[in-house]
């Protein structure tokens, strides 16, 4: 649905994006991840046609990006806000019309969303009369009002209280189920890890990694397991694994081990079961954050 090809963008002497190519499939949730200042917002601004790339192209549904696509994209910027003195309903109407909706359609859709989000009584209220969490809800509704095919959310959960964050998350998943493509952009990678199907990691204006979460994790898992048990073990006598970490939690021992090649978890358990009481075993899968750090250190 969105094909980003060889984008280069420079500001004065600083190169914000260097030959970045990303493919985003229709109906997927895509995570655009990377630390602050990596170039995520620059890329999003290009997709939103706020700025233009110096070179490279963006294709939207196979068409070269053009002003007609603006109305098909919903964008929640990181720096977001509303007119303080304007009534919420009027404000929504204005923003929806700027996205190309007719007044009648806009009113219909605003009513639909206000009902859905339990905001019916807010129409005549002003932004300054709303709490921060309420404002965030309004902001989210403004982003999705025009029923966009692609929704771009820049740091979507920053500033949300947990209750509202959960509500918004559910709404996003519901929209995605109906076929809307979602892009999450954030530096807090753990916040979207469970939501995304695909991710791309951006670091210092380069894309350093992309693919489906499953594939990436498969590449980066390295036969590490966490085992909890009761009893005592002489850990140095085992040759099937290497102990990375040891800890004691309320009489329960916890060890993190790395299996030697050719060894399965069953082999290890067979050895340990006669000695101690096994309480828990799980594979340690690296978080995206850890993968990112690994990747960056590897690059250096």
């Amino acid at each position: 649905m969105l094909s980003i090809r060889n984008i280069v963008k420079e500001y004065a002497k600083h190169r914000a994006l260097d030959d970045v190519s990303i493919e985003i499939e229709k109906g997927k949730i895509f995570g655009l991840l990377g630390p602050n200042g990596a170039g995520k917002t620059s890329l999003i601004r290009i997709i939103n046609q706020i700025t233009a790339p110096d070179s490279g192209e963006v294709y939207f549904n196979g068409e070269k990006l053009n002003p007609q696509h603006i109305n098909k994209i919903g964008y929640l910027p990181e720096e977001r806000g509303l007119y303080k003195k304007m009534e919420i309903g009027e404000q929504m109407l204005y923003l929806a019309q700027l996205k190309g909706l007719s007044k009648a359609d806009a009113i219909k859709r605003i009513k639909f969303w206000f009902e859905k989000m339990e905001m019916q009584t807010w129409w005549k209220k002003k932004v300054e009369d709303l709490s921060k969490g309420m404002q965030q809800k309004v902001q989210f509704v403004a982003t999705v009002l025009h029923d966009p095919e692609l929704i771009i959310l820049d740091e979507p959960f920053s500033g949300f209280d947990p209750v509202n964050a959960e509500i918004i998350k559910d709404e996003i998943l519901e929209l995605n189920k109906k076929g809307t493509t979602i892009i999450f952009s954030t530096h807090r990678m753990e916040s979207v890890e469970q939501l995304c199907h695909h991710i791309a990691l951006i670091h210092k204006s380069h894309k350093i990694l992309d693919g489906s979460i499953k594939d990436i994790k498969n590449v980066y898992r390295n036969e590490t397991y966490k085992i909890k048990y009761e009893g005592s073990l002489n850990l140095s006598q085992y040759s099937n694994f290497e102990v990375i970490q040891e800890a004691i939690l309320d009489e329960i021992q916890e060890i993190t081990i790395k299996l030697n090649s050719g060894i399965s978890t069953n082999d290890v358990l067979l050895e340990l079961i006669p000695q101690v009481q096994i309480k828990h075993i799980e594979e340690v899968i690296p978080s995206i954050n850890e993968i990112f750090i690994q990747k960056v250190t590897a690059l250096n």
Partner: protein
Amino acid sequence: MKKVFLIIEREYLSRVKKKSFLILTFLVPSLFIAMYAAVFFIYKNEGESKKEFLVLDESGIFKNEFKNSETTTFKYVNGDYEANKSKLKNEKDLLLLYIPKDYASSNDIEILSSKKPGFSLLSDVEKQMENIIQNKKLIAAGIDTAILKSSKTQININAKQLTDEGEKDANIGATYVVGFISSFLIYLSLFIYGAQVMRGVIEEKTNRIVEVIVSSVKPFQLMLGKILGIGAVGLTQFLLWIILSTTISVIAGKFLAPDQQVIKTEKVDATATVNNDANPTKVQESPALKFINAASSINFPYIIGSFLFYFIGGYLIYSALFAAVGSAVDNETETQQFMFPITLPLIFTFIVGMNVIINNPDGPLAFWLSMIPLTSPIAMMIRIPFGVPTWELVLSITLLIAGFVFTTWIASRIYRVGILMYGKKVTYKELAKWFFYKE
């Protein structure tokens, strides 16, 4: 284009609906009413009081030469200066005109009164005396009365010029006032509406709504919509003022009209035969009425038309610059450093205008300042009531249009970058860099 209209609509309605707009719209014409009432009141007062001059003429030259009018009569008295002076006590409409024997050499002519005499009263007496002496001197120089009579036409022309001058004086006064008021209004409104644009831009930036909006419209469209919307507010205000003020003037004019009519016809008579002995009484005009008369001789549609044009032109130039400043800062206190170069030409032109241009509306400084687009809205509005050659007007208008296209272009290049920059202390160098950014 539809989106620009949406922005214009929002900017316009959100301001026009405010209470402050309504208050200002009706406050100014009320001041106008108050001014009219004051003028009317002054005129009424002056018109009612009849002045009587006691002429104590020691030279004997002026005996029976002064002409009575509806508001002034002359009575010739003899006797002691002090004795006559004492008659004035507590008589507010009685004046003593004392002409000593050697008035020509000593220049000691006096008018005494218990109340300060009006300026026009003095000048009227002065004028009459000048005429009388002139005639006497001509006769004394050996020009016999026949020649004087036959040259009467010429003297009449002279006299007419004198009265014309009087009229012209009044007109210059009115022109002066119209020039002053209209340029001051332009000066003020450029500041007021320019600052509104700037504040609007800062508001959108600090509210952080700007990025939401520029994901729907181009930054240039947003800037244009804001400028045009607020400009429309300004125009609405002016139009309401003009309509209300004209209505008031017409109503006020109805009250004053009969009196004005009489004075106008009598003035014609007076100028035609001012030196004729049998001439009818010359009416004493009150300054206020003079002003109203003079004001009615000014071409208001032309002035208002040019005013609106120069307001729009100047506003477009300055509001674009103000928008660029607003985009470059994070809050209003940071605007100071960029405001100076913008307000400088405005303040400079206004000061120069009020001191130089208004006294010499055709001078080189007046000419150049009314050509430079940054200064022409103020400079030209001072000059227009005095009359400006068509080619100068056309050139000034052309340059103004070119000027605002140019400044809008520069401003929009800074604006599009500025609105998306947060938390950065911006320098002029930075602004220049933004200007050269590619899209």
